[in-house]
């Protein structure tokens, strides 16, 4: 059984069809790349899966549980992390506080213990801060930890956005254009980071226009066009697929 199963998912925006009976499987511990021309429904797929948009029809299940029409914060709690296009962040918050905030779903202590600052709450806070230090180190953001998120360069902003989705250790990570517009060495650094994560057991889905990153690093690739899944397979198979080439009309290198 796949970790994430999307079945017959449809979504339209006042007549415009964004998703058209889409089927997609994401297997445990793989990096799945999603590509497709602009307006193919890639980001809409993420937004429906994570509960930000309600589908017209269809079903999404995660680890065997139906998560269709659940609220975004509840979907986060079952273990799906995500980033957003253009990586908007908590602009006026420091880098380390961003990550500390992102630890939210793992806190157990009830609110009154937090207000009274009981040993249990303090211990929890300490563990969270420890995890944040580790994450800063992993993202190579330690030297920037006291900067405000908006002061970071775009490469570090992307890294922080991934960090925010990652710090609470979700099983599935959905990344919307994590390396678009970044310079080649930054792309490589972020993709290497994702490889390390997959080795640690995290399943990752990436929407990306950077073909080199997708072809080099993804285990499997799915191609979306007009809200449908038109092809699935390895980089080799996708490269040779006639339909895909037609959909892109020579956009591929």
């Amino acid at each position, binding site marked *: 059984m796949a970790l994430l199963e999307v079945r017959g998912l449809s979504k339209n925006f006042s007549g415009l069809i964004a998703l058209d009976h889409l089927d997609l499987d994401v297997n445990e511990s793989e990096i799945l790349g999603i590509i497709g021309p602009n307006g193919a429904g890639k980001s809409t797929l993420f937004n429906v899966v994570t509960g*930000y948009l309600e589908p017209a029809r269809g079903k999404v299940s995660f680890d065997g549980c139906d998560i269709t029409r659940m609220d975004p914060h509840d979907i986060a709690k079952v273990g799906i992390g995500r980033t957003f296009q253009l990586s908007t962040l908590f*602009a006026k918050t420091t880098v380390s506080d961003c990550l500390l905030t992102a*630890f*939210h779903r793992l806190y157990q202590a009830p609110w009154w213990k*937090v207000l009274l600052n009981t040993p249990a709450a303090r211990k929890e806070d300490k563990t969270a801060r420890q995890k944040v230090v580790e994450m800063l180190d992993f993202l190579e953001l330690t030297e920037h930890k006291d900067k405000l998120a908006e002061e970071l360069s775009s490469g570090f902003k992307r890294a922080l956005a991934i960090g925010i989705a990652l710090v609470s250790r979700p099983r599935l990570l959905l990344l919307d254009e994590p390396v678009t517009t970044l310079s080649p060495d930054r792309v490589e650094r972020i993709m290497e980071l994702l490889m390390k994560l997959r080795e640690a057991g995290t399943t990752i889905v990436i929407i990306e226009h950077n073909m080199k990153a997708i072809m080099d690093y993804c285990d499997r690739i799915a191609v979306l066009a007009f809200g449908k899944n038109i092809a699935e397979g390895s980089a080799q198979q996708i490269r040779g697929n006639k339909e895909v080439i037609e959909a892109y009309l020579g956009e591929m290198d």
Partner: protein
Amino acid sequence: MTTGYNLVLGYTGLFSFGHAGFIAIGAYSSTLLVMNYHLPWPVGLVFAGAMCAAFALVTGVLVLRLGGVYFAFVTLGFGEIIRALILILDDITEGHFGIPGVPPLFDSLTTTYMFVFLMMMLVFFIVYRIVHSRIGRALIAVRENPAIAASIGVNVARYTLLAFVVSAVICGVGGAMLVHYLSICYPQLAQILTSVDLIIFTKIGGRGTLVGPAIAAFLFTFFPEMFRFIDEWRPLIYALTLVVVLLMAPMGLEPAIRSLISRAVTYIKSRMFSRSKYGITGG
């Protein structure tokens, strides 16, 4: 009260024009309960808080789904509805005349001030604990970016409601204490200007800071009072103070005072350092 209001505006970024309504609800709840049933005033304060919590919960569920401007308008309406209700229900509330003879908190003024100070410290403590915990961080996340806040598991609606209710309770208890102190309960408590005052205090003090709003409230209440001898000029002095503070400390009083202190510290440090250098060369 301002500190309580700050929890809504400063930490969730919602403009509420209705908090004067909560002050009035608190004030009238306590007054009516204490005077009609001859109960001690602490019961009144608790009742005021409970009434405000109930009102805030119901209105909060209804209006918090509205964002930005709509929220501001609806809460504006809420404050006015409360004021209108106080005037309409004049067989209970005495309408325009207000209710005189509200029992005082303590006989001595000094004890009263001590008690008010203690309550203020309690509010500071509660708000401080909220702000410097995961709850405060979640609230800030909701203000900065609700979409990302939800993606990390923050229940945006619940946290906004929490800030709204807590601030309403603080305003309500504050309103109740105010009428016990003034010994008269009057409908103007619910007017828009009271809410506007709260917004100004929060903004001037530094949105999302802790002590700033309280300093601002103090400044803008007592500074114009000092000019009581030229009574009709007081609003002008209020406005002038506002302009001067806004020009000098656009980010708010607390950040301004902080940077002033840190500058003073560096200045003193540099002076001390240069002196020791002179000492060395002199010797």
